[in-house]
C-alpha cells in the first residue's frame, strides 16, 4: 500500500526521538513515579488502612503507572508535532506521498512507545518493591491501549493548535494532571463525601485509572465494562479529531 514505508519511517523517527532524549522522555517520569511509590506508599502506607482489600502501597501503583503513561503519551505527541510545526519541517512530511491516516498513526506510535516504555519500566520496578501482580492481563492491555491512544491523540491535537509552548504545558499541568489526581490515583472514591463522590463520575480519567487498577489488582470502584466503555468512547472521537485535522489540513496548512 502506498505510503506504508513512509509510515514506518515516521514511526521510527518518533521512536528515535524518544530514545535520543531518553533521560527526559523515559527516565525522569519513571524516577518521579517511583518517588511517589516510595514516599506515599512505603512511608505513609503503614499509617493508612487497607483500601479495597489491598495495602495502600499496592493500591496506588496502578494509578501512578496510568498517570505516568498518559502524561508521557500526551507530552510526546504534543511536543513533537508542535516542534515540527514551529520549525516548519512538518512541510517535509505534508509534501510527502503519505496519507493523512499514516501521518496521524506515525505520530501516535511515538506516544504509545514512550508510554509503554515508562509503564513497563515502572511495573518492573514496582514488582520487587510492592509485590504487585497483573490479575487481568487482557483488561490491562485494553485499558492501556485505549488510554495511551486518547492522550497521544490529545497531544497531536494540542500540538496542531498550540501557538506557543505554554499552550502545551497548560493542558498538561492545568487539565490532565488535576483530572488524573482527582481520578482516584491515591484514594478510592468510597472515601469521598458527597457531592465529590458523585462528581468524580464525570471525570473521564477516573474510568481509565479504575480500568488499569482492575487489570493489576482485579478490583475497581466501578464495573470494568463501564470503565472500558467510557475510555473507548473517549478514545474514538479523540483519535478521529486528530485524523480530521490531518485530513483537512486545518492549522497545518495555511
Amino acid at each position, binding site marked *: 500500500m*502506498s*505510503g506504508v*514505508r*513512509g509510515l*514506518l*519511517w*515516521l514511526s*521510527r*523517527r518518533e521512536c*528515535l*526521538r524518544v530514545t*535520543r532524549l531518553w533521560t527526559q522522555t523515559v527516565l525522569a517520569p519513571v524516577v518521579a513515579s517511583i518517588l511517589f511509590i516510595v514516599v506515599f506508599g512505603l512511608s505513609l502506607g503503614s499509617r493508612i488502612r487497607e483500601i479495597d482489600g489491598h495495602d495502600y502501597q499496592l493500591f496506588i501503583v496502578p494509578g501512578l503507572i496510568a498517570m505516568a503513561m498518559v502524561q508521557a503519551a500526551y507530552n510526546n505527541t504534543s511536543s513533537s508535532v508542535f*516542534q*515540527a510545526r514551529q*520549525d*516548519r*519541517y512538518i*512541510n*517535509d*512530511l*505534508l*509534501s*510527502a*506521498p*503519505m*496519507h493523512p491516516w499514516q501521518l496521524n498513526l506515525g505520530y501516535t506510535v511515538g506516544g504509545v512507545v514512550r508510554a509503554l516504555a515508562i509503564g513497563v519500566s515502572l511495573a518492573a520496578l514496582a514488582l520487587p518493591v510492592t509485590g504487585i501482580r497483573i490479575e487481568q492481563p487482557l483488561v490491562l492491555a485494553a485499558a492501556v491501549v485505549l488510554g495511551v491512544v486518547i492522550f497521544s491523540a490529545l497531544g497531536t491535537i494540542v500540538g496542531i493548535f498550540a501557538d506557543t509552548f505554554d499552550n502545551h504545558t497548560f493542558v498538561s499541568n492545568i487539565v490532565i494532571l488535576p483530572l488524573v489526581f482527582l481520578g482516584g490515583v491515591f484514594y478510592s472514591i468510597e472515601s469521598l463525601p458527597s457531592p465529590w463522590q458523585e462528581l468524580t463520575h464525570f471525570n473521564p480519567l477516573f474510568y481509565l485509572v479504575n480500568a488499569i487498577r482492575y487489570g493489576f489488582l482485579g478490583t475497581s470502584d466501578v464495573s470494568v465494562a463501564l470503565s472500558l466503555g467510557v475510555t473507548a468512547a473517549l478514545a474514538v472521537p479523540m483519535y478521529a479529531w486528530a485524523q480530521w485535522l490531518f485530513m*483537512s*489540513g486545518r492549522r497545518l*496548512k*495555511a
Partner: protein
Amino acid sequence: MLMKPAPALELRGLSKRYDDGTVALESLDLTVPDGAFFGLLGPNGAGKTTLISAVCNLIRVTAGEVLVFGEPAESLSARRAVGLSEQDINLDRFLTVEETLVYHGGWFGMGRKEAHARAAEMIEIFDLNQKGKVRTPKLSGGMRRRLLLARALMHRPRLVILDEPTAGVDFELRLELWRYIRRLHEQGTTILLTTHYLEEAETLCQEIALIRAGRLIARDSADGLREHYAAASLEDVYVKAMGV
C-alpha cells in the same frame, strides 16, 4: 499517433485567499513544460511562495486546479514527482545530516538500503562529508542551504522547486549551486526557480514568468521580455513590469 507529454506543471484558475482576507493568488494560469528551466520573478508578497505551496500540498487552495505531470497535485504520485527546497531553513533539529536525508527518502517510499546509498551519494555531491553525523542545528548557514537542496533531490524528483535557493549564501556557494542545478536540468529534470537575483534568473532560466499581486503579468525568455518591454536589461524589465 504520439501522445503529447503532460506538462510538468499546470495551474488552472488558481486562487488563494488566506483566512485574514489576503488574496495571494487570483485566477492564475501557468504551464511549465516538462524539462523546462523556469523562473518566477516578483516582489515580496507577489504570491511566488503561495504558488509553490499550492503545488506541494502545503496550503488549502481556494479555487482552481494544480496538475503535476497530469496528476492532481494532492495525489501521491504527483507528490512523489516533486522535490521542494524551501526559502526558509526548515530542518529537523533532532536529526543529523545523514538522518535528514535518509528519513526524507523514507517519507518518499525508499527502503533502508536505498535511502542510505542515496544519502551517501548526496552527501558526496554536496560536499557534506565532514558533517554527516552532525545534527542540523550545529551546521553553518551555507551547510544548511546545501542540505536543504540535497534533501529536495534525495528522492530523484522529476520536478524540482527551488524557492530562493541562493538567498543569503556567499558568492562561491551560489556558483557551486548554480553548477549543480544546471547539471540537474541537463539530465532532464524540470526546474522551477524563484529568486530575487535577476542575474540568476537570466543566467539559468529558459523562460521567466513575472508575478505581481497574485497575477501573472508576463511570461517569456529573458530576450523576449526585454523586447516586449523595450528594455535594455532584465532589471529594466522588472522595474517597468512591477511599476517600481
